[in-house]
């Protein structure tokens, strides 16, 4: 493509085809292919595009950086996705601790003056504000039904990283061979957001970032709330690597857990409206009769955000229990 605006001449099918060929997936960590969301969403009654400008987890700042550094590119990306979906309304949800990013984006929207209706909504900074169902509810007041998808309530959702990658693919023709990754944690010498090629070994990332200042207790792929531990630094960066976090021993809890003391903290924080303590206690003494009970407690509505385990004073690994139970064939 010759000029930035030339994408406007493409049809929606062309756009979806470019996105598919570029191998673009959701870059917020879940990695759903973007063209699937777009082609399913087209003509299915979707009226609003939600742009997730909240980071999915603490420590991660790549989306914030993208909004601050490439606000015009982000706006173009949003317009491309709107065109692919055949709609003209987009809401960008940004947490209120990212005021600089919101300002840059507002300026970019004003300057671009797009014919579409793109607006920014400031959201309270809290975890998990960036979780799909929660941000859609925060922005539109619509609740994705239990076991349902955003399309059920006429919404499509993309995060900032994906939007930026879509713009690069459609305007510059660049396939998704690299992504922005937050390299952070107290033990890395030069933390920051890096553009890293897919397939780069974690050990090379460590080297490029100035090395480690000590032996990390855990190396996390993703965020510290729901990311997984890396067992070998020869593992590669993938399309779903939102961050690489090096945690020291004093940042993690390693110790025993206790019986539930029924404090209710997990019920209070659960964004899915579940009773994690009941689920955890039930799974602990799992027997064939309890599957039904788990179902009725809504185990399938758990988004595995980890908030319950995070607040639990008895340090109970409830979110892990739920994850394990969900993998059982009986559920």
């Amino acid at each position, binding site marked *: 493509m010759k000029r930035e605006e030339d994408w406007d001449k493409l049809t929606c099918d062309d756009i979806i085809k470019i996105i598919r060929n570029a191998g673009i997936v959701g870059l917020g960590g879940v990695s759903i292919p973007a063209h699937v969301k777009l082609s399913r969403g087209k003509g299915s009654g979707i009226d609003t595009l939600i742009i997730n400008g909240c980071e999915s987890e603490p420590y991660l700042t790549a989306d914030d950086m993208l909004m601050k550094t490439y606000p015009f590119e982000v706006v173009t990306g949003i317009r491309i996705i709107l065109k692919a979906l055949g709609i003209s309304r987009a809401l960008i949800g940004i947490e209120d601790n990212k005021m600089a990013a919101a300002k840059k984006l507002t300026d970019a929207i004003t300057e671009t003056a797009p014919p579409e209706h793109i607006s920014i909504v400031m959201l309270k900074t809290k975890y998990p504000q960036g979780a799909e169902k929660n941000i859609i509810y925060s922005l539109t007041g619509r609740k994705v*039904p239990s076991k349902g998808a955003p399309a059920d309530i006429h919404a499509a959702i993309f995060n900032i990283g994906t939007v930026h990658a879509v713009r690069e693919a459609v305007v510059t023709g660049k396939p998704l061979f690299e992504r922005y990754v937050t390299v952070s944690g107290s033990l890395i010498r030069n933390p920051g957001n890096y553009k890293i090629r897919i397939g780069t070994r974690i050990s090379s990332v460590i080297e490029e970032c100035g090395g480690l200042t000590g032996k990390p207790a855990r190396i996390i792929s993703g965020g510290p*709330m729901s990311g997984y531990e890396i067992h070998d630094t020869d593992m590669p960066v993938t399309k779903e690597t939102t961050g690489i*976090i090096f*945690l020291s021993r004093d940042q*993690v809890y*390693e110790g025993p857990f206790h019986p539930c003391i029924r404090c209710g903290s997990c019920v209070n924080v659960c964004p899915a409206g579940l009773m994690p303590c009941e689920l955890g206690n039930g799974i602990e003494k799992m027997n064939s009769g309890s599957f039904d009970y788990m179902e009725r407690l809504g185990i399938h509505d758990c988004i595995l955000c*980890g908030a319950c385990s995070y607040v639990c004073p*008895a340090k109970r690994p409830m979110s892990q229990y739920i994850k394990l139970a969900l993998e059982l064939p009986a559920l």
Partner: protein
Amino acid sequence: MTEQKGTSNLFLTVPPHIHSGGSIPRIMWSIAAALLPVIIYSSYLYGLIALGSILVSASSAVLAELMYSLLFKKPVTIKDGSAVVAGLLVALSIPAGAPLWLPALGSLFAVIASRLIFTGLGRNVFNPVLCSRVVMAALWPVYLKSGWNIFSENHMAAFQGEVYDKALNGITPALIKSLLLDSTGPAPGEASALMVLMGAVFLISRGIMKWRIPLAFMGTVAITAFVFCKAAGIPLAGACALATVFSGGTLFYALFMAADIITTPVTAAGMLAFGMGCGLFSFLIRFLAGWPEGVSYSILLMNGAVPLIDRYMRPRVFGA
């Protein structure tokens, strides 16, 4: 969860990898700290005998817990503070002038009620302090009667009369000062509503207290008292209701016994229902049955209903 990682790093940990830092000792020692204002004020008000009773009770509870751990070969958990809290609550709820063996035995009962019968912290269905109190009331009723205290019985009667006389003048600054700072009963926990409330505010600010329970409890007590006074034709029912809420041990029980972490519902709606139930039963027992220990029994009764409440008052699942 707890395996030590070797060089091969084959033992992986599970998310979340970070923790809020909340812990059982933090909760228990915060509760102990929240009881400090009322402990200090009651020691000043009732004299050193109150402090002595509190110290005996707390050390007895710790000792009983230690014995239990050693006898049954369980990990020693006295550092988590739960025994200290149980001991403090026992001492604060029995008359300050009672002989010192009473708080000592009371704490022992409380530890038995939580550890021996229900196998440990978190598993007890009934509030151990109230269990112990009910046992004491059955075995040695004479010491728990409000008459048994360092003041004379006449003094108490005169005092109660004074509160209600003030109430009959309407809600005046004098009434409020008297309700907040004056002792309303023989137990150190009843020394001052203000001190008890200060502890509660501290706990709520640390996010530890299940505040919905005392709110619903005292709200129900106030409303039922108001309606009762109106129905009985007592003038200035509002002032009477206020006096009912702040005098007597009900406030202390609502904040530190009914809102106990372990023996109460975990859901927001459940906590409100639990508090209302406590309030309603307290009213029924106090005004219509006239037993002593009305508040203790109403809380224990609701403790028994907690599994039911948790089952039927679940939060709404997102999107369901």
